[in-house]
């Protein structure tokens, strides 16, 4: 668990953080959402002590990070940034092996780990291991960045706008990869973004920041509910808040038992926003859900479930 206790930080005259208190439960994928300059990166960087808060404290599993040697602390926390920052003079494999090497693992263990990680992030180890970073596309580079952060199997992952520089298709691919890795490994992930759709696609919890303060925190459906703070309303297109809320809700929860012969099929794991779009596309008010036992979803069910 990561806990921020009344954390404040100033850069000279700029108050970047004002008494932020937040708890990120173990195993959560918490998205820090906020407009540019709201202090998201600063808050994230207090966890691995790249920023030392001017006041307040940050604890990891109950231990004050200020009491841990910064290098040892960072080797136990994965860190991914928007610009990736792969070492240009090292191969992909050497980049991924950075932390295991610092930790003094033996060669065979490092090699096996590198290959397993490359496979985990969707890169064929034999094809990518020896490539120099300069030959990778942006998406491939960020996959390597993710593998590097996961190398020593840290329980906590910090990600600062990891997918913001990628095109929408690649971004969705990497989001899916991250969701899968989160589900498989159960790591505690703190991810910064200013993209509402990304937050909804990934978050198990959302924390919204504005002007250095935490203005909302909770599960996505709550934060995007009618009581959403002004910042959140500003960040989604006018009037689209209700639709974004649908993206935070699972379609399965709104379904009713029984088959719907001839109705369009909604894939398993879809959100209510996907269901609504499918209804609009087919001009029908009823969908069949993929899976067993047979279930179906109606407009009334959708509205009933999405009502706050």
């Amino acid at each position: 668990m990561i806990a921020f206790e009344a954390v404040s930080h100033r850069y000279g005259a700029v108050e970047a953080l004002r008494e932020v208190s937040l708890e990120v439960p173990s195993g959560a994928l918490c998205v820090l959402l906020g407009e540019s300059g709201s202090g998201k990166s600063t808050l994230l960087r207090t966890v691995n002590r790249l920023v030392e808060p001017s006041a307040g404290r940050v604890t990891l599993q109950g231990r004050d990070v200020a009491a841990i040697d910064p290098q040892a602390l960072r080797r136990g926390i994965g860190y991914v940034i928007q610009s990736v920052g792969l070492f240009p003079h090292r191969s992909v494999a050497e980049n991924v092996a950075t932390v295991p090497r610092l930790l003094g693992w033996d060669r065979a263990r490092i090699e096996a780990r590198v290959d397993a990680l490359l496979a985990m992030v969707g890169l064929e180890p034999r094809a990518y291991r020896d490539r120099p970073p300069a030959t990778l596309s942006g998406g491939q580079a960020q996959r390597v960045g993710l593998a590097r952060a996961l190398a020593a199997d840290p329980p906590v992952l910090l990600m600062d706008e990891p997918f913001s520089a990628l095109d929408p298709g690649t971004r969705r691919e990497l989001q899916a990869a991250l969701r899968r890795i989160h589900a498989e490994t159960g790591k505690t992930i703190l991810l910064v973004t200013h993209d509402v759709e990304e937050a909804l696609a990934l978050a198990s919890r959302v924390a919204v920041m504005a002007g250095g303060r935490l203005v909302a925190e909770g599960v996505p459906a709550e934060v995007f509910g009618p009581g959403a703070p002004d910042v959140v309303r500003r960040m989604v297109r006018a009037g689209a808040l209700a639709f974004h809320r649908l993206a935070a809700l699972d379609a399965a929860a709104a379904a009713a038992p029984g088959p719907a012969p001839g109705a369009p099929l909604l894939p398993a794991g879809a959100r209510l926003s996907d269901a609504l779009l499918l209804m609009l596309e087919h001009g029908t008010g009823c969908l069949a859900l993929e899976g067993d036992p047979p279930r179906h979803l109606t407009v009334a069910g959708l509205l009933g479930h999405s009502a706050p």
Partner: protein
Amino acid sequence: MPSPHCPAGRLAGAPALAPLALAAILAPLLLGWISVAPNRLVSPRAASLPGSAPVLAALVLFHLSGLVLLLAAWRPRPFWLAEAAAIGAVLALAATVGLGTAAALPAGSTVARAAPAAGAWLGLLLLALALAAAAVVRGGTPALPLLGALLGLAALGAAGVFDSLSLAREMAGRAADLRGAIAGHLGLSLASLLLALLVAVPLSALAFVRPRLEGAFLAIASGIQVVPSIALFGLLIAPLAALATAFPALRAMGLGGIGPAPAVIGIAAYLVLPLAGGILSGLRVAPDDLLEAARGQGLSPRGVLLGVRLPLGAGVMLGALRLASVQAVGLSTLAALVGGGGLGTLVFQGIGQLATDLILLGVFPILALSLAVDAGLALLARRVAP
């Protein structure tokens, strides 16, 4: 230096090559190949080239190489053709002159002197320029091919081709002096370079951690750069002499107002700025986000320096070292003015006696040394930071 495959380099070198080649071929024909004087006191006069078989063979080779060079200027494929042709032309020209003087000198005369005429000198100079232009077209440094040409000339000299030239006679008479001067010159260059490094490394490290000091350091170093070198040596004479008088132990160690000490200190003072500037910019090559990623992975400050900053900055730092080394070799020539020895001794003696051969005897090794240093460090840089 233009980077490999730099299109600007191609444009810069190619148009110069053809006129240079043409002028190099015409110069000896119009201005003469060799000059001969009956003794050292009479100024030499242009003489015609004797028509012996070896001379004619060398002459034919020269014109063939010149033609190939012209062709290569027009269509630079393969990329090494122009440089090979220019080196061939240099060697053939030198051989023509060497063999020609051997045939032109009266047999058995020890006082008669022969030298290349203005046309031959001009031809050599133009060919060297053509070589440099061709290197630019290739996108590389001219140091290596120039060094190749010099080595070829040395081989011809070792084979005795230039024995009749007054320069070779001068060299034979002063072989011991020359060896001593070369060793002294190397010692001066190396000592100044080491002294400069000894100052520049801590200075740039300090400026790196305290950026506010950088301005002050650079101001001082560039202030020194403005003082003419001879004036700086002169300025050092008085305080060093005073030091040596005050502390006889220092004098015993070889420190004094004149001699190598002021020269080494003065030369080092000039090298500090390029070295410190290069080290400092080398340390700053690594971009901020990369450094942040490195720290975020848990690299220690030492690990960031050794694992990120130095490998990424090595190319820039070696470039500065290369520049400073070449400067050290050149500046060491001036050490002779304060009694510091080195090849400058021959050059300035030659100037004093109006003896061109003696000047050249000093100048050629200086040229070869700086080319060798430049080429060596360029190769190293390419290996370390491709």
